[in-house]
């Protein structure tokens, strides 16, 4: 009798376990966001919590050319605080910007050495793993599968864990429109927000980083610009405020005279060129997660 009961319990337990189903939580039809048609590939998903359970912005920080870095070639890694730009983490030479391979080969190339999946493999699952996989520009193999295309309203996501410590933020991106014009720069304002959950009020508290007037390579094929900043450099004494951040969102606008462009994916005004940001990588090097 006891054996029968044990077997029944085991069997029941097996089926109770089926409630999790993590691996089918985020499924897509076919090649989602990768159809080859510009207007079909916008990723505009905002996590419900970041739409409905958000407190007013707690603090806003300005990120400008003075307290940020912008990398487009190997020598630009010198802008990073020592020793972050060094390939071996100790001394020169700097990273090779173009020697960028998937993160399995960590230690070779900037992206593969600093990507979030390498930091914590909890970031590996989901569509946004494209932004955490270490491919900081088009690698000539996966093409569109490397990037996330956003319009001005951007996207908002929760991290799989809470960020316990952090050093600097970097974003690898380029601009894109539907024209055949190749290789020019567009000035972009990027609003980067980190969300810290406040258990007392049961809301996500936003901390906004306004990255102003960054020239971004546009229609540049696989080439990208890396923009970023050091949290300590921008937040100063406030640097601990975003500890335990568990969400992030990115929106953007154009800075300057771009009347012929629209950043709204729904805008069908004749004569307006749709402009999108192609995000290749979100990096939080040397961060820790729990």
């Amino acid at each position: 009798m006891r054996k029968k009961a044990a077997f029944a319990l085991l069997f029941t337990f097996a089926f109770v376990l089926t409630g999790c189903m993590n691996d089918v939580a985020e499924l897509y039809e076919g090649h989602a966001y990768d159809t080859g048609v510009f207007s079909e590939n916008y990723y505009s998903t905002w996590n419900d919590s970041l739409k409905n359970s958000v407190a007013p912005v707690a603090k806003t920080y300005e990120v400008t050319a003075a307290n940020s870095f912008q990398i487009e070639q190997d020598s630009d890694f010198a802008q990073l605080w020592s020793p972050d730009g060094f390939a071996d983490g100790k001394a020169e030479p700097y990273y090779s910007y173009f020697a960028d391979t998937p993160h399995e080969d960590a230690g070779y190339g900037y992206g593969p050495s600093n990507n979030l999946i390498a930091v914590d493999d909890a970031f590996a699952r989901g569509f946004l793993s494209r932004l955490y996989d270490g491919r900081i520009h088009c690698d000539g193999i996966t093409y569109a599968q490397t990037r996330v295309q956003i319009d001005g309203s951007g996207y908002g996501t929760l991290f799989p864990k809470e960020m316990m410590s952090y050093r600097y933020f970097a974003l690898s991106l380029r601009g894109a429109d539907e024209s055949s014009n190749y290789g020019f720069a567009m000035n972009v304002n990027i609003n980067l927000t980190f969300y810290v959950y406040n258990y007392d009020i049961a809301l996500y508290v936003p901390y906004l980083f306004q990255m102003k007037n960054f020239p971004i390579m546009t229609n540049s094929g696989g080439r990208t610009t890396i923009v970023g900043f050091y949290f300590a450099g921008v937040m100063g004494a406030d640097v601990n405020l975003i500890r335990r951040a568990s969400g992030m969102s990115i929106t953007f606008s154009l800075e300057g005279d771009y009347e012929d462009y629209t950043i709204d994916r729904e805008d069908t005004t004749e004569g307006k060129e749709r402009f999108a940001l192609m995000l290749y990588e979100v990096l939080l090097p040397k961060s820790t997660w729990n």
Partner: protein
Amino acid sequence: MDLKKRLYALVDKYDALIIFLVIECLALTAFSLADANIIFRYLGFLISIALLPFALMFTSKREWLSLGLFSIPLVIIAFLTGFSTFTLSMGFGSLDNLSVVLGTLAFFFLGFAVRRVRKFKIDIALLAIGAAMALLVFLGLIYSLYQYGPFHASLYEGLVYYYDGRLFVVSEETKWLLGFSFVEISINYVSLFGAMLSTALTALLYISPKTEPRKFAIVAVIGLIGLLSIVLIPNIEALILLIPVFLFALGYRFIRSREKVGIVVQYAFFALLGIAGIALLVVILNNAGVSFIRNALAGNAFLNRLFNTNRIMSPVNAVLAPMFTAGGFFGFPITYIDGLVANTGAFEFEIVKEGGLLAFLAIIAFLLLVIFSLARYSAKSPDKGHIKIVILSLLIAALLNGSFLWDTFPLIYESDYYFSFFRSAPYLIVLFLIGYAYYPLSGKPLIEEPEEIVLVSETTNADHLANSDEEEIKL
């Protein structure tokens, strides 16, 4: 005579230990503990050496001769899947390659020799294999249900997810314990284990739940775990391949006038064999570049479709054609990338990549010999019905799955990691069972001769046995 005496004493003294080691080795292999097949192959080899005295004493000269002929293709397979252009260029390592040679021969020999150990009971060995493999499959099944829920391959058919920035089709994968961690693996790979386990259910046709309730329950659980591992995914192709296995089992159990039916089946079998043989010959000549065959096939739309352009033949041709080049004669080098990545789904053709033309011919010959050997085992062996039906069903299931659903790149996230059928745990288990069920192509095994039964019943007296003038026992 002294040597004889000593051997009998040795055999009598250590048979229990040997049986324990054999069962242990089989259970570890079936469970694929730590994915350390290389260790199990060497372990099998060492145990097979310990079994040599048993084989020497209880095998007639005629059997040795028959076994020698039977083993020729297996020896070729063992050497060419161990050491070939392919294995060298893949960099498997000498110890690993050597283990394949020794392990292939050893597991076959284990089955052959352990049958000559008087106290050995194949029931126990089959239960050990079944229980160990069922545990492996059960762990994967539970974790798979936990992560995907039941019937995920149907419910989410064609849907994709992203992992590490890459796109994967969720209905093509399931979870599997590989080494000490769970990995995502193709559903066809897991179904081979599931199909092998499912054949335990065929034994229930012979075991009475009233008189042997415990055995019935254990066998039922083992079989059900295998069946559920296929049904709960579900892998429809694997389920379809189980139909002929269960039909065979039902026929084997319930068709009374077996001799009459046997003749019909024999004729049908030989007819099918003839057609398959001719088709295979055409395929081989086509790939060998025999111009009149090639032109005849290419010039006829139907034949061209049948032999060249369908989804089954395209990868087969991609594998067979390089076999006739100098570089691919002993297996493919890494530079024959088209041939290497062409997934034929059949171990009979995958062996071409690994061992080349000779290995391919050897496996065809070996399969034919095994079929004849099993037919004789089925008809003549005194083994109980539930043993025979499980062994035969299991080998048929392994053959069907290995011939249609074998996946050489089953790891989902490490899609360039080559899985060789001839280095897998199921292959070793299958070899053991082929060895066990081996029946000389003429006559009976010595252990089944009436004189031998008398002889065996008197083995408690080693002296008496050693002094007997049994002519068949030759040292």
